[in-house]
């Protein structure tokens, strides 16, 4: 603790994550629930929300989309990051057979959920999607955990051609999952919501909004009457899709 605000961590190892992404393992842990996030400050650059990819040791996975994420992806062993949190409400885990669906950097919100759920004796399967194979992230982490991964890419370079929603169709038909957990681009989550509408499968979605405080004061992260940082980032699917999906009733 080197101010009243942040805990400072050092990067212990870095792993290139597809093109333009990185996973960083830090030199300490942080107790967090799966789905919670931290605010990470790089002095002189920016402070942004990132998912807790793993909590022991604290690990982050970043996709390079702008100034902050670019600087994060260039960090090397020994470099420091300033962290506050964890914040938000994570995934509500009650089901026995869990289907995880991730896209882009959203996948980082699902790995801790996967490892924690395995520890608790649940069955986990995952579908990961991206535009093309070189943009897929974190497949290795699920391999490490021994979780079967279904891949989907828009161009068919890895796995099935199409979306993760297409890729999970056989599992849904077979009635495999008790609940579905997803984090990724909003069009993906909306499509998933539409596919599951009318089934009684619980759907939990993790959302992203730009954040200033992270602890429910500034209002910057609102989604309808909800605050993503405080009430989320994980929401019951129906609750948010009512606001986001023009086709929802």
């Amino acid at each position, binding site marked *: 603790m080197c*101010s009243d605000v942040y805990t400072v961590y050092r990067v212990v190892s870095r792993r290139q994550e597809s093109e333009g992404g990185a996973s960083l393992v830090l030199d300490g842990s942080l107790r967090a629930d799966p789905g919670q996030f931290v605010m990470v400050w790089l002095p002189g650059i920016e402070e942004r929300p990132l998912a807790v990819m793993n909590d022991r040791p604290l690990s982050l996975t970043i996709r390079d989309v702008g100034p902050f994420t670019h600087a994060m992806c260039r960090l090397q062993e020994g470099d420091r990051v300033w962290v506050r949190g964890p914040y938000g409400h994570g995934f509500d885990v009650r089901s026995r057979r869990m289907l995880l669906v991730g896209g882009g950097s959203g996948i980082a919100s699902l790995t801790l959920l996967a490892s924690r759920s395995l520890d608790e004796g649940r069955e986990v399967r995952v579908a990961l999607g991206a535009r093309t194979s070189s943009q897929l992230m974190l497949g290795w982490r699920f391999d490490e955990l021994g979780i079967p991964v279904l891949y989907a890419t828009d161009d068919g370079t890895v796995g099935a051609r199409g979306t993760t929603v297409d890729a999970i169709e056989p599992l849904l038909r077979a009635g495999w999952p008790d609940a579905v957990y997803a984090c990724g681009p909003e069009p993906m989550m909306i499509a998933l919501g539409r596919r599951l509408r009318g089934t009684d499968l619980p759907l939990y979605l993790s959302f992203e909004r730009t954040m200033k405080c992270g602890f429910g004061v500034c209002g910057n992260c609102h989604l309808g*009457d909800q605050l993503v940082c*405080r009430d989320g980032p994980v929401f019951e699917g129906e609750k948010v899709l009512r606001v986001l999906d023009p086709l929802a009733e």
Partner: protein
Amino acid sequence: MDRDDRSNTGAWQGPKLSVDLAGVRLQNPLVLASGIWGSAAGTLARAGRAGAGAVTAKSCSIEPRRGHPNPTVLQWGHGLINAVGLSNPGAEEECRELQAAKEQLGGTGVALIASVFGETPEAFAQAVLALLPASVDLVEVNISCPNVAAELGRPFALDPGPAASVTEAVRSVYSGPLLVKLSPNAPEIAQVARSVVEAGADGLTVGNTLGPGMIIDLEARRPVLSNRVGGVSGPAIRPIAVRCVYEVAAAVDVPIVGTGGVRTGADAMEMIMAGATAVGIGSALEDEGEEVFGRITRELDQLMRQLGIKSLDEIRGCAHV
């Protein structure tokens, strides 16, 4: 005893929490402070439904503003420090949100307060004009933000003359209930209050964040806020806010929204004893969110019963001895 306090049978219904804020009736004295939960219709209405007497939108200007880069809002152990930098979507978009908020609040009896700021007195007036279609219940004029000095110059609220010029400019275009938000940083806050009331303010919000303050990170060896400095709020500033309300209440005869560090029913009662009519609630949402309104109202009600107080009118300003 007020008529409010009796049912048809004449039995006492418990302490009277409703207040009159510049002609607008609030069911209870708690007001969501400006800048907390932004200006989105959904969040404002949620705070209202949860039991705020009134809700204030985030301050807006004619043109949109991005505000400062992060870090902008931090918890430091005794409250918050922020340099959001008055980010807002501009008056046109704000007006649409306020209209939607008004609709969502329909029938709840919760008052809606718009907040405006500008670089010049004329810009304040223009922002108010742009919001008129939303027919909010009150307009609050924010002349006291301490963390935009680099761009907007010395806050108008520090001196009686400039504070009055803004008030006059707004008064000339808006005849509805008008609050002016003062700064606890003003060396002579009572004088500022007097000149603002003479210029036409119907009520005063006392006050904005204190400071600016600074937090330095020892490892980074630099201030944490990207703006370096920011306004301090929360429990750390409460005694100062109470003193400001006390001085202003002694100087002028308009209702005051006592704001700064209030977290409990006792804190709220203290503000009222200092002379406040209503009580602003801001940083206190950091822990409990909107439930803070119900809790403080219950605590206030309980305290009034314990102390044998039947109506807030009975104790308003009673500490002026």
